């Protein structure tokens, strides 16, 4: 497949065809021990896009970021940045800047010297690099701190100093390695909003790595979910959240993991799930054969407690645990066959352990997986106003 065709294939209809700024072609990284950290990755990141690499630890996301940076060399495949093949170029020649998880500010240099360092290495004149460092520092609200050393800054200020250093040499691509994980919980939310705003204002293509699905959903324009060196799904946060392509993505995304329940198709074209009989999700519902084993997926947020007179098909069970989420409660039900089902109910919903409860799947939100692949067709009207694109199928091998 040619690059143009590939780019067109993954282009999102909501964002008009912007040029690909970062393109991976069958990128593979095999470590000396034989571990395939990256397995033939195909991916394009568009100009100005905020792109997340998401996955559990050991999935290869950091290796991918480091390979893009040039800190690791790809075993095979190519990498283009801004239309230029950089696969064999050293990190310094790739026109990128990276912000590390620990910020990597040099402790013996002041904030200003730190920010100016990449310019110094590139032999920019002292006057110009000082001016640019000051200007960048001021842009990020560090104007009064340029004379300090990193050890005298708070975590958030250190992060901004590192961002300023990345910005000062005006790279084509930013790479962030776990940008928020060194901040405490409160700072993290602030920094997240700040980072998103900054990225939007700068309009620089940005790839970041995170293991935190909430962070990826909140920050990114598009997300690539990785597992064992492969891309499991690439899509917008809404797509990934609402229509996970497989059970791995389904269970990884969401602050409360999706209920993935064993289901068996009946002769009447319905599903038997945890002792309850539910309609096959989807509009139109995908064909199922009698006795077939499937997986029924429904997010806890999309299960509603049914009132007494509610006759809609529902999962039924005994309340086992009630956990408060602040503005809501997470209820764990034990169904008749022992399976646990979680649902999120309103904060003032009365639920006590031992109560019987019926949970109705919200219309159009349940998903059906066959052999770990999504079979529920995208229903019209469940998207964000635009028809959802065809599911991205990661090429593998």
């Amino acid at each position, binding site marked *: 497949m040619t690059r143009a065709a590939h780019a067109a294939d993954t282009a999102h209809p909501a964002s008009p065809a912007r040029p690909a700024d970062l393109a991976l072609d069958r990128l593979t990284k095999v470590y000396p021990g034989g571990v395939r950290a990256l397995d033939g990755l195909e991916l394009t990141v568009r100009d100005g896009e905020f792109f997340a690499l998401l996955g559990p630890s050991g999935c290869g996301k950091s290796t991918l970021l480091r390979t893009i940076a040039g800190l690791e060399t790809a075993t095979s495949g190519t990498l283009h940045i801004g239309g230029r093949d950089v696969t064999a170029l050293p990190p310094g020649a790739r026109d990128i800047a990276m912000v590390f998880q620990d910020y990597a500010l*040099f402790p013996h240099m002041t904030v200003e010297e730190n920010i100016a*360092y*990449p310019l110094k290495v590139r032999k920019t004149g002292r006057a110009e690099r000082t001016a640019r460092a000051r200007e960048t520092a001021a842009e990020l*609200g560090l104007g009064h701190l340029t004379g300090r050393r990193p050890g005298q800054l708070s975590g958030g200020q250190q992060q901004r100093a590192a961002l300023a250093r990345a910005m000062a040499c005006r790279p084509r691509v930013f790479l962030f390695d776990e940008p928020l994980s060194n901040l405490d919980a409160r700072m993290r939310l602030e920094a997240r909003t700040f980072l998103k705003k900054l990225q939007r204002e700068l309009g620089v293509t940005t790839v970041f790595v995170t293991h935190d699905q909430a962070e990826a959903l909140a920050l990114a324009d598009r997300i690539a979910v990785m597992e064992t060196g492969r891309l499991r799904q690439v899509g917008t946060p*809404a797509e990934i959240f609402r229509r996970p392509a497989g059970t791995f993505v389904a269970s990884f995304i*969401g602050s409360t993991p999706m209920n993935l329940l064993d289901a068996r198709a009946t002769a009447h074209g319905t599903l038997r799930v945890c002792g309850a009989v539910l309609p096959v999700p989807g509009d139109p519902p995908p064909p199922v054969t009698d006795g077939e084993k499937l997986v029924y997926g429904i997010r806890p947020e999309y299960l509603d407690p049914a009132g007494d007179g509610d006759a809609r098909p529902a999962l039924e069970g005994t309340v086992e645990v009630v956990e408060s989420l602040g503005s809501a409660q997470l209820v764990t039900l034990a169904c008749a066959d022992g399976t646990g089902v979680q649902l999120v109910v309103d904060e003032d919903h009365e639920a006590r352990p031992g109560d019987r409860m019926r949970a109705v799947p919200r219309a159009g939100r349940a998903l059906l997986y066959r052999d770990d692949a999504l079979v529920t067709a995208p229903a019209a009207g469940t998207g964000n106003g635009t028809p959802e694109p065809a599911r991205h199928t990661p090429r593998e091998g």
Partner: protein
Amino acid sequence: MATTASSAEPAPPDGTPPGGPPEQDAAGLGRRGAALFVVPALVLVALFLVLPAVWTLYLGSTDYRLTGIPAVDPSFVGTDNLTRALGDSGFLRSLWLTLLFVLGSAVIGQAGLGFALAWWMRERTGWLKTTLEALVMLAWILPSSVVAFLWIAFLDRDGGTLNALLHTPGAAWLLDHPMLSIVVYNIWRGTAFSMMLYSAALGNVPASHLETARLAGANGWQLLRDVVLPCVRGHVLTNLLLISLWTFNDFTPFLITAGGPDGASEILPVHIYKTALGNGELGYGAALSFLMLLINLVVAVIYLRLLGRGRRARRRPAADVPAPRGPGAGDAPGRPDDPGEATA
């Protein structure tokens, strides 16, 4: 020892300080218990370090000799020995040779080669590294007498290994190049320590700092200058302090060249030995030892001040400024981890 004593010092008798930061008495010994542990070491130090030092100081102000009348009844001569030393060409010459020996074999040789080896081994594995490490370590752990014999055998004029290797029969290395011989010997002997210390130090350089510099486009020299050396500065100074003092006080070259020929390799410890025991001038030798002690002290103080300056520069008290709130923070209500809800 000093830290134990000082940390035990401020502990109040009841062990629970009213207010203030909690005491650093992790072992829970209390002042008395801690003192009990420290006393044996203090006694040993006093007996074997302080007492001989004071004794040397006393001897240095007498005309005590090994033989003759002053051996039985030494008389007090005050600072005569010290003033004599400052005008003694033999002493000044050996001081100069010692300086060359320390600079050549320790500061440049051991520290330089040790750093180079540590840098080279940084990311290497395999048999070459293991072999090299083992060989360098071997030179470090062998007893001095064995090593001295090895080097005499290596550099010997007749049938020496070096002459056999270079096909230069009859070249008298120890006679023609005595200083060079002991400098090379001492580099060979002591590089292991610097190499190990620097290996540990280089392991502490954060990978992300090196990578940041690489991403900025820094070359090998810039990496070393801008990232590595500032980071291992304290280790470098500590190492230089230790190996300078060790080399300054090293007596082993005597086993190889005996200070000769004609005093050409007579470094200070050898000179003092020859003066005090060879010539029997114990009082004068003690005065020279005292001068040597003073030089050691000055060297140590200079290094420690350099070390302290670096530390202070890095640990200037951090002003406790709360981080300013990011622009736009707080205008993201709702459940940010659930875009499905937000856009539905």
